[in-house]
């Protein structure tokens, strides 16, 4: 059994701005998690947050950039586990940006929640993405100066 997460949002901001918030570590940290991301295929990086030891999560998401198409799409692996090199969640996140109605449609696909041991991870991640993006990312971009002028 595999569950996938798929959500789409519309922002009134241009793709250039949404792309910056997905790919600049300091901006990404403001709405998602602290990280050492670089938009370079093959770059290994981590997101850091508080561990949930009892749930088998060591507070780090182990990632590798798999694909970068500037302003269009971004894919990275998203792995997590209890530490000591053990991986329980082995998933892939893909962001797709499409210019639409003077703004951007952002599609998130998060795939690979396999088996019963990842049901909780699926549940938390699904809720996390669903609430974080409108509440944090949209709010930040609303408050920010536009990065490009039309």
């Amino acid at each position: 059994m595999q569950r996938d997460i798929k959500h789409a949002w519309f922002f009134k901001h241009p793709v250039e701005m949404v792309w910056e918030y997905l790919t600049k570590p300091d901006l990404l940290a403001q709405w998602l998690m602290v990280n050492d991301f670089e938009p370079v295929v093959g770059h290994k990086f981590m997101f850091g947050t508080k561990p949930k030891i009892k749930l088998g999560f060591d507070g780090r998401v182990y990632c590798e950039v798999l694909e970068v198409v500037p302003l269009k799409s971004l894919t990275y692996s998203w792995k997590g586990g209890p530490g000591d090199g053990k991986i329980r969640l082995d998933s892939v996140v893909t962001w797709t940006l499409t210019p639409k109605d003077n703004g951007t449609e952002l599609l998130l696909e998060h795939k690979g929640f396999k088996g019963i041991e990842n049901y909780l991870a699926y549940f938390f991640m699904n809720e996390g993405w669903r609430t974080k993006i409108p509440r944090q990312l949209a709010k930040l971009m609303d408050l920010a100066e536009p990065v490009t002028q039309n």
Partner: protein
Amino acid sequence: MINKLGHVTLLVNDYDEALDFYTNKLDFVVESDQKMGDTFRWVTIRAKGQPDFGITFVLADTEEKKQRVGSQAANHVFLTLQTDNCERDYEFYKARGVKFFGEPKKMPWGTEVVFEDLYGNRFDLINVTWNG
């Protein structure tokens, strides 16, 4: 001959608050947490990449021990802690609320920065690059 370090003692005011700091803010794992009798609790933690060296928490149950909580090495670094990426972990631990003294600095032997634990014990977080 003596050929290995076993455990190092860390005086704590409370086992649970110390465990919370070392496992939830840093990345230590609990090696053992056992009650022995009614009063004694054997609590040790270790770094993830090193199974055979641990920190043993000892409850400060006398005035003398209480005075030394957080200053076992005065204001000097008590232990150096090695990482594969000092800058990244500085950001991660800072985001979890760990108090640092300044920012990571590149030195001839590696990149390092000093932080303190919940009691004020100082630790050097270091990515050793010196292989001479």
